[in-house]
């Protein structure tokens, strides 16, 4: 472990210590701020007894399916709009409008269409993940230096080859930056989607815990969501490293 990551850990531990001391000394109600130790116990119970796992599973599946769907559609749409000028000029205002609409505000209508449960949440998540991919794919494809385009023209490359062998690989770092944004948004989308229309999952559990005035459980759920988000993010980074491994060669750090 490096010095800074040790310091980072020490900071975390001391914040927890201060928090614990604060709760114990002031005797503030656990309804307002539960002690870290109490949260830890609930968390431990939830994970060992197992009542948290089904919810983790539901939220993870929603987030990942929504993420996969949104990324795939966003990427394909980005390629289409990037390649076909006419389509871009025709559709861009609509794409933009669809993004300016707060997507969570669409939640209720999705519930009308898809019912309570996973489908609505997945659709909302996909809609949230769609835009960063679309935008970054568009930017990535258009950021090819003009000389490289000329090179492919000189070499007699077809349009398809120019797309597959120049534009997409060349835009890949930008596209992957979009993926990183999307994975973070996916979890937010899934949790908040469950607030509106979920019957299971971590977001739905938060609403249920709120109903029972169980702040300690709510904090335990925050911890789980954070851990899940970190896990997703790290996996995305690993995937990106693998995908861009030849890109990275010769770059500092």
């Amino acid at each position, binding site marked *: 472990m490096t010095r800074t990551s040790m310091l980072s850990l020490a900071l975390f531990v001391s914040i927890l210590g201060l928090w614990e001391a604060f709760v114990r000394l002031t005797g503030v109600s656990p309804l307002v701020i539960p002690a870290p130790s109490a949260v830890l116990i609930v968390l431990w119970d939830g994970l060992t007894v197992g009542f948290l796992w089904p919810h983790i599973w539901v939220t993870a599946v929603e987030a990942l399916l929504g993420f996969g769907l949104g990324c795939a559609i966003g990427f394909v749409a980005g390629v289409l709009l990037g390649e076909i000028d006419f389509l871009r000029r025709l559709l861009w205002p609509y794409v933009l409008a669809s993004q300016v609409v707060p997507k969570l505000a669409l939640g209720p209508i999705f519930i009308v269409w898809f019912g309570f449960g996973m489908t609505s949440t997945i659709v909302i998540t996909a809609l949230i993940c769609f835009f960063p991919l679309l935008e970054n794919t568009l930017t990535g494809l258009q950021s090819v*230096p003009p*000389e*490289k385009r*000329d*090179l*492919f*023209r*000189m*070499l*007699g*490359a077809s349009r398809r*080859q120019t797309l597959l*062998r*120049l534009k997409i*690989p*060349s835009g*890949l770092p930008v596209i992957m930056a979009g993926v990183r944004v999307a994975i973070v948004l996916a979890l937010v989308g899934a949790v908040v989607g469950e607030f509106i229309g979920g019957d299971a999952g971590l977001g739905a559990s938060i609403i249920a815990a709120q109903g029972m005035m169980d702040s300690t459980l709510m904090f335990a759920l925050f911890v789980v969501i954070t851990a899940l988000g970190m896990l997703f993010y790290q996996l995305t980074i690993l995937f990106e490293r693998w995908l*861009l491994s*030849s*890109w990275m*060669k*010769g*770059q500092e750090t």
Partner: protein
Amino acid sequence: MPNSCNFLDIHSASFAYGDGTDVVSSVDWSIPAGAVHCLVGRSGCGKTTLLKMAAGLLQPTAGSVQMLGKDVPAPSRNVGFVFQSPSLLEWQTVLDNVLLPISLHQTVTEADRIVAEELLELVGIKEHTCRYPRQLSGGQQSRVALARALMTEPAGLLMDEPFAALDAITREELQDDLLQLAAIRNTTVLFVTHDIGEAVYLADRVAVMDAGRIVFSADVDLPRPRNQTQRYSTAFNAACLDLRHAMSPQSSAVA
């Protein structure tokens, strides 16, 4: 007048970018097949633009550009282009970059790979075959770009300051290699450079461009094959001086 044994005929060709002012104006130029012509001129005078017109990457806004007696509405695979920046694909190895002109059109054979390795040896970066472009120095990158352009054995080579990033010795070696290859393959070369000595050394004919026009051109009557000792001959220096005068009449008159 267009002549059937010319590789390239540029006939009062002009080019203007979007803003409408001519960047290249009424250029006449012919290159016989197998000849090496050099173009010098100050930065921004339109050399790259002219070269891209010759390649068919840009279409003249007036006049015509003909290759082997035919218009060039689109780039021809018979011509290799070495761009001013190396333009390598960062996500592919040096070897794959050199093989790109082949791999775009057919599966790469072992024979292609051997040719690519020979070219990489020729330009002096054999030991970096499996590295990635970002792991190379600027000069090494431009040598990879040169090898890539030679890969298809094109009948014509259009080169935009290919040696600008190299040290004097490597540059001289590559000049000799280029002349040798061009002679063996009977390649027609149009070579843009800032270096007067390089222009005289390589060329059968040199031209000076200024503000979009060819303002001077002359044959270089030095014996072939060239060798680097000729650089110190009186004839060579006289040719250089002529070119120097043509490039900036006022300042050299004072000097």
